[in-house]
């Protein structure tokens, strides 16, 4: 609605310098929830990076005889697990696993999926058909099922966490290809792409210098949302016993461990559970905020 009126009255005709960054900040921080989400993510990153400094105990160190399944206390803020390991420390190290799995999978999938989508969309025809049908086929499998299958196959060749990363990457490639494909199709219709061809640009220049940067804002939103989904999936997988090898700390595995002491030691599964929920929620909220802030329809307006 806003857009319609501004084009009606056409005050965009006179050039006003509007700082893109300022506009981005204003829209992005307009909603309190987004700021909160961003705060959660900053905490997550800090926890992951400075885990050795922040964790009060070694997360792998087994406790002495009497130290298993301790209730929260001054000494162990969130108590200990069955092996006597400090829950808080494991939670902090778990952030590392979660972020690592998330970021690496997203990057790997992006590196493969985005070019596939651009190539399919740009060239069209047979190439488009082959790539997109392959992606459709991959998409037919539910993400978790695909990951389970890959994990079973790959288990012999890779260590736990890499199995998860590979499995999740493969699972989300079609998502990237699909979105990029759609974006490419719409960006391709712009005259500036025709202009590139008229100037004699090579295809790769058109695809990666002109289409890709213009597809970037929506892709960043996708990446952010995907990170949340991946962390959830990683938790799901490690809950099912696939993933980081013991004694490594992963939130999903911690939930599974704590699940057995549901009644007496609720903190044991509540803490990682809440961590997962909070982080996934934060990624989604921030993704939402990014989408609004990067909306090209708002560009050039104050």
């Amino acid at each position, binding site marked *: 609605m*806003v857009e319609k009126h*501004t084009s*009606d*009255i056409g005050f965009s*005709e*006179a050039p*006003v310098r509007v700082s893109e960054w300022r506009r981005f900040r204003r829209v992005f921080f307009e909603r309190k929830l987004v700021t909160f989400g961003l705060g959660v993510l900053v905490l997550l990153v800090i926890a992951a990076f400075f885990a050795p400094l922040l964790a009060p105990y070694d997360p792998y160190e087994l406790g002495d005889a009497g130290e298993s399944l301790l209730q929260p206390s001054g000494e162990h803020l969130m108590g200990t697990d069955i092996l006597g390991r400090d829950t808080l420390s494991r939670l902090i190290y778990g952030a590392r696993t979660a972020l690592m799995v998330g970021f690496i999978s997203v990057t790997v999938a992006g590196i493969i999926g985005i070019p596939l989508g651009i190539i399919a969309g740009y060239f069209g025809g047979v190439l488009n058909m082959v790539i997109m049908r392959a992606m459709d086929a991959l998409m037919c499998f539910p993400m978790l099922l695909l990951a389970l299958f890959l994990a079973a196959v790959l288990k012999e060749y890779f260590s736990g966490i890499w199995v998860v990363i590979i499995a999740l990457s493969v699972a989300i490639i079609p998502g990237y290809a699909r979105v990029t494909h759609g974006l490419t199709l719409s960006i391709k219709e712009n005259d500036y792409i025709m202009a590139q061809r008229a100037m004699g640009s090579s295809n790769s220049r058109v695809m990666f210098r002109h289409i890709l940067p213009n597809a970037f804002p929506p892709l960043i939103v996708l990446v952010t949302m995907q990170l949340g989904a991946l962390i959830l999936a990683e938790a799901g997988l490690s809950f099912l016993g696939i993933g980081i090898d013991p004694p490594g700390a992963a939130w999903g595995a911690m939930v599974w461990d704590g699940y057995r002491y549901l009644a007496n030691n609720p903190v044991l599964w509540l803490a990682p559970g809440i961590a997962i929920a909070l982080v996934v929620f934060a990624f989604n909220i921030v993704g939402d905020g990014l989408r609004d802030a990067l909306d090209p329809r708002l560009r050039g*307006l*104050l």
Partner: protein
Amino acid sequence: MAELLKVENLKTQFNTEGGVVKAVDGISYHIDEQEIIGLVGESGCGKSVSQLSVMQLISTPGEIVGGEVIFEGQDLLKYKAHGSEMRSIRGAKIAIIFQEPMTSLNPVLTINQQLTEMLELHLKMSKKAARERAIELLSMVGIPSAKSRIDDYPHQFSGGMRQRVMIAMALSCSPKIIIADEPTTAVDVTTQAQLLELMKDMVERFKTSLVIVTHNLGVVARYAQRIYIMYAGRIVEEGTTKDIFGKPRHPYTIGLLKCIPRLDEEEGRKLVPIEGLPPNLINMPPTCAFLPRCSYKVGRCFQESWPPLKHLHGQHYISCYANTEERTSEPAAR
């Protein structure tokens, strides 16, 4: 002819985050019965917004902040925008034809459903009578085999045909005034000629008045009796068509006529562009908005606020301090 609609000092603004945009900044005009007037200006001059304001079709962040719209002795702005009085005027007494024939018809309803809706609503016709009237209207606006095409959907019509349907719809309740907002911008020249001739015939036949809102000086030269030239939310010059084109007096009007190519121009004619850009309507200075682009400016222009309309002779008015007469003795174009 008697005066039908009189707009006094109408002001509409848009409250955007960047500031207040005075899209229409105190315009006054009138239209007589069975008259065709032209409202001319470039995009962003407020010509469309002024017409939407008359119909009270402005939605947030837009707001009508002042003025009067006197129609049949009543001030329309006193009515609530969503009230029943205003609804009984829209479509029935004052109808509007929009620029985009693609989006101004509802794609999921047949032409019949859209045409008879107004007839049933405003004229309380029965379904059957409304359908017959609709067919009659469609054949009147030149849609071949209207009887079989009335149940088609908008997408089954071409752009020009859709605009004909829009004209039929505007005529359906025999309104007193039809506002045509850039009615032919989206169609080709030969179709434009067809549609304009059709509108002219229909206006005579239905004895209505017509407001042509356009940026095309040629269109109003051909069809309008009187013309208002708008710039940056205000009327800068008004007069009969012959006044405006024969003896343009406002620097903007003079500039426009010198900068458009003419079909009948002499070979080698040089266009004289109006330098600069139309102004940004946010936070406008109180002085004349055309000042930065004006080649006639005098000292007074810098000191005083926007010049009020000055009567020249007959129906010719301009809003300008400068003496443009001596320099316009040469023919404006050609």
